[in-house]
């Protein structure tokens, strides 16, 4: 986490105006991502992980904060400079059924980024690049004139990946890239993403609600709850010794494929509170087993309690011992 940092997010906030008040989708989030690593971003539906991913590449405008790309705050870029930046930061969308224009053929879809950024001069050059990209993501060349609705989910997602690779980006936000696919295709796409990373040295943010998938691909994992990162560390220590009570509950919910296996399941009570005008204090306090008086008064900051391990809990040190 030194000179190798590619993306640094600082105090990033994204609020939405709603009729009931301010919705705090992403609330004061800070972290860094090193070049070539995969940061897994997990959390339940509606916790703001997709919003965070979109704000990071400016598909949504942040309310405040900074996103530094090689030390430069891209949130301050003019629209012209941002257009150049789009070549370097890309996104793969969750749903390959709705993220591809049904009226465009595979070659139109993959050549769109090349066309709008005037990357390839001639039509022949562009066609060549499209075919090359199709090879890279494992799409048969004969599909070049097909339409998305003729292809299965896995192939569609490969088109989406090819589109995001077309401009040779350095940093890719993967917004639940496999959650709309069935399990065996999930594995194919994950392996593809993995081998692409090895081949081209991409840096990924991998957003998912599926812990087993995140465990499979991530170097480090950040756990989000209600717009905040509650815990972040490398994946081994996070799975071996979760420090935040929410992470503990989350991990205890991963099913173990073994008959008769019994274990201590931490069942959380209540529902996720509303992200609209959240009260002071820890967001998780209402459902926490270890709640103390201070939790409802003071918002815990994300502290580095061991090198590389960040937790936002007043009692993180005590809890690690208690749970083990």
């Amino acid at each position, binding site marked *: 986490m030194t000179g190798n940092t590619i993306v640094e997010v600082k105090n990033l906030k994204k609020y939405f105006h709603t009729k009931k008040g301010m919705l705090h989708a992403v609330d004061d989030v800070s972290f860094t991502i090193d070049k070539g690593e995969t940061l897994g971003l997990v959390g339940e539906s509606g916790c703001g992980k997709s919003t965070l991913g979109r704000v990071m590449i400016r*598909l949504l405008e942040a309310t405040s904060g900074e996103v530094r790309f090689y030390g430069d705050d891209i949130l301050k870029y003019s629209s012209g400079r941002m257009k150049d930046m789009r070549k370097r930061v890309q996104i793969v969308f969750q749903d390959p059924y709705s993220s591809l224009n049904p*009226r465009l053929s595979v070659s139109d879809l993959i050549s769109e980024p090349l066309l709008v950024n005037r990357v390839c001069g001639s039509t022949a050059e562009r066609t060549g690049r499209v075919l090359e990209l199709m090879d890279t993501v494992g799409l048969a060349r004969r599909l070049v004139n097909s339409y998305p609705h003729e292809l299965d989910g896995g192939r569609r997602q490969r088109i989406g990946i090819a589109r995001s690779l077309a401009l040779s980006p350095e940093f890719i936000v993967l917004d639940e890239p496999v959650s709309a696919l069935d399990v065996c295709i999930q594995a194919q796409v994950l392996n593809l993403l993995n081998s692409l990373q090895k081949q081209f040295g991409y840096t990924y943010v991998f957003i998912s609600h599926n812990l087993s998938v995140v465990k499979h691909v991530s170097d480090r994992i950040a756990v989000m709850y209600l717009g905040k990162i509650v815990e972040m560390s490398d994946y081994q220590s996070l799975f071996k010794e979760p420090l935040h009570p929410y992470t503990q509950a989350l991990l205890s919910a991963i099913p173990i494929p073994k008959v008769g296996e019994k274990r201590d399941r931490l069942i959380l009570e209540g529902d996720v509170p509303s992200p609209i005008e959240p009260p002071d204090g820890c967001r998780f306090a209402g459902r926490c087993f270890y709640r103390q008086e201070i939790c409802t008064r003071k918002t815990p900051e994300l502290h580095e309690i061991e090198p590389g391990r960040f937790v936002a809990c007043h009692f993180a040190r005590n809890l690690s011992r208690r749970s083990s």
Partner: protein
Amino acid sequence: MSEQINKQPGQSMHGIGAVFARLRRSPLAMLGLAAVIALVLIAVFADYIAPYGYAAQDLMSAFEPPSANHWFGTDEFGRDLFSRIIYGSRISLQVGFIAVGIAVFAGGFLGAVSGYYGGRLDNLIMRGMDILLSIPSILLAIAIAASLGPGLFNLMIAVGISSTPNYARIVRGSVLSIRNQEFVEAAKAVGSSDLRIILKHIIPNCMAPIIVQSTLGVAIAILTAAGLSFIGLGIQPPVPEWGAMLSGGREYIRDYAYMTIFPGLAIMISILALNFLGDGLRDALDPKLKQ
């Protein structure tokens, strides 16, 4: 297996061929299509079909009832009504298609901008359209035609403007439903400009309702144009416009009813044909209605 799949034509679901195949299942729509094609052919080849010129007067044979020489009879100047109706199809179709063209273009542009950008601009444009919509379209057309003065071109503008709000609403609605789809965001993510997104991603995906509305709109435009000509604000004699002919025959309706019946029939048939076609297209373009 995969080879077989690949042999299927590229646009099996949404191509023109598929729409036509579904259209063919509706006999009324095919009847409408045939009549519209016939109408277009008549308009194009009017010079060869019409036995007389549209302004050729023959006072000796004025007010002749339908006969072998004059299929639809003659008017007060002895002009052949059949020829005049044939030539009239040119005017009516011109007015219908060009007026709708103006309305689709203007309404489509306003609706797309309004739906895509939203906010204050949307409010401004759509409230303006609401004002136009609150005035009955025929009244609006009369007002515009009256202020521009009579004439073919002004008639088209009047009819076009009076139906613009309808298209603006339809396009805005479709744009709103498509704007939030992920593929629009995906286009933004690779750096597409707003103009490209509207033209390449949004408009092509909301063509179906526009096609249907404009087919029906041509019928309405023909009727509005005929109405304006009927009250003297549209085409001026001796140009043979069906509405104007209707108006001319009105004075003689007691003794020479055929002078109003035939132009009236011409209007009715073309509007019916366009409506059948429009309804058929609406069903054919909506895959959800597919049996």
